[in-house]
């Protein structure tokens, strides 16, 4: 087992474990903390996938900013859940079954993929050095992905206005 494999399994188990924690822990604060943990493990996985920039963003924006917002809201509303985490109902059982079916179908589809555990293009050292770097990402973002980039700016504006309107006191 190479170091990469060890790390992969460690991060994978961590990710799934804390993700399961999110849905099976009663206390919302614990759920949120579990989610933060999951995001950290995922950032590790991203590093293994040679996506350093995204890994940093994951920690900074996701685990850092978004989850803090969540925790802030949870604290603000001083939520503490009592009662069962889920009630059994027909639609929920059907939903759970559909989820399981989706998982099985996806795993089956993935197992049929041709893949030998090597990445052919990685022999090209120059390419390997540039992939996933913030330099490359920035270059592509500002020269090729201009339209989606501008669209995101619009989205953020709309989100700000929307959040202010919704959170404003009674209209």
């Amino acid at each position, binding site marked *: 087992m190479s170091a990469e494999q060890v790390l992969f399994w460690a991060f994978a188990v961590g990710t799934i474990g804390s993700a399961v924690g999110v849905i099976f822990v009663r206390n919302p604060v614990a759920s949120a903390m579990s989610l933060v943990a999951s995001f950290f493990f995922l950032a590790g996985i991203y590093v293994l996938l040679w996506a350093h920039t995204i890994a940093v963003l994951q920690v900074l924006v996701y685990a850092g900013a978004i989850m803090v917002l969540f925790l802030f809201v949870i604290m603000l509303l001083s939520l503490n859940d009592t009662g069962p985490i889920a009630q059994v109902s027909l639609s929920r059982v059907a939903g759970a079954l559909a989820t399981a079916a989706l998982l099985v179908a996806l795993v089956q589809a993935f197992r049929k993929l041709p893949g030998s555990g090597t990445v052919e293009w990685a022999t090209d050292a120059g390419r390997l050095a540039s992939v996933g770097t913030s330099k490359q990402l920035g270059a592509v973002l500002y020269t090729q992905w201009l339209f989606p980039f501008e669209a995101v700016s*619009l989205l953020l504006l709309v989100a700000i*206005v929307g959040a202010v309107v919704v959170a404003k006191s*009674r209209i």
Partner: protein
Amino acid sequence: MLNTPSFTLAEFMTVVPAAVLVVGAIVLMLSEVFLSTANRTYMAIVGVLASVVAGLFALANAFEPARLVLQGFAVLDPFSSFMTVMVCLGTALACLLASGFLKHRNAERGEFYALMLFAAAGMSLLAASNEFITLFINLEVLSVATYALTAFLRRGPRPAEAGFKYFILGAFAAALLLYGAALLYGATGTTRLSDLAGLLPGAMATKAGLVYAGFGLVLAGFAFKVAAVPFHMWTPDVYEGAPTPVTALMSVGVKAAAFVALVRTFLALTHGLDPQVPFALFSLLALLTMVAGNLLAMPQRNVKRMLAYSSIAHAGYLLLGVTALFVPPSAKAGDAGGVLSATPLLAAGAVNASVYKGILFYLLGYTVTSIGAFGTLAAIERREDETRGNTWDLERLSGLAQRQPGWAAAMAAFMLSLAGVPPTVGFLGKLFLFSAAVDAGLIWLAVVGVLSSVAGTYYYLRVVVYMFMRPAPADAPAPFRHWTTEVALVASAIATVALGIVPGPVAEWLSRAGMVFGN
């Protein structure tokens, strides 16, 4: 050394309508700061102006040749341009409706109209998107604006609840769509729809499972957005809880934009797949949506909920048109004809142009009709009713023909148009759409659609019965009349009838809709 991109000015035409809408929205937000007088009707007029100008730009775009623009992230084609025209029309009417509605509730704010214009901009951009990530972002622009609009009024629990439900299911659908896009990216190495079409046949050879999984997830995501059965559960609650002018915009704009995006996406995604698979899936969705939408609407006494279910049924008719795009070419006249199979009358050639036209004309008809129907509801909706809980009960419409003959006549026209009775635009829309479906060989599906629309007629007629044939209740509250509301109602009523009699140049223009990029 960066290779800086070079654009020609003409490439930006596709975003001009959205840009106009955004500028309008910003003006409105600023006006709230600098110009907040007691009378805010001018805000609605600014909204209408922005929509009209954007609509005119979009109409001009519709006569441009179809082409790929902005580095392949967007397209400029008549199909999306016409959709933008309709969105702008719907937004303008919804702004007018909102003015009276909000004024009555003392809740008229610039942000409301700004969010409406933002939503319209998102719809316009969504219709033009040619890449999954772009599509996803624009979908979010329109969704986020609509979530906020839904939860705008916070008198009573309903709007916030509706906003919350809409948000959760919308985000869930977006996640499904996105995961599907990721899988398709894995299979082909691109997220651009026009490239996907070329790469999918190759990917099918080795990664069929991945492609089908991605296809299914994307379809499920879109099915949520267009409220196709069985992904429709959110619709009635959200439509009921949202402020009525917002419901009107949702029922037309959001749905229309999602339909255009759906068509564009699946035109690309069906390349290389076994043609029976998308055909079967779409037929099934269309069948379930038409039948279930109509059957679920029948027992509703709450008119707003009834209209929500009816919008599901209308999505079903549109899906019938979409299905006609994906009829497998191999179907022969002699094949056995079950409901879910195509049996063309003749070995017909391409029918696509008439299908696009049918979809767009139907959307146009549905836009004016649905805005009108929700608008009438908004007009008779009293603030005092909000605590009673039966705001939209059929009983509230009793005797409207005596109290407000003009409104009742308009509402009757809208109901008949929704039912597809001539001489209204609803009939012509159904005619265009169903003729395209019959031409494609979907005869049995068309028959099912037609029969389910009879069930639809039953509940639309019930509204007419209450308005014209029941006495007015003694405690009927006096209406709150506002000129903008009346302008919107009159405009939609005239459009509903006039377009049904003389579709004239509109139908001719829409013939260009067949020029869909990549088709």
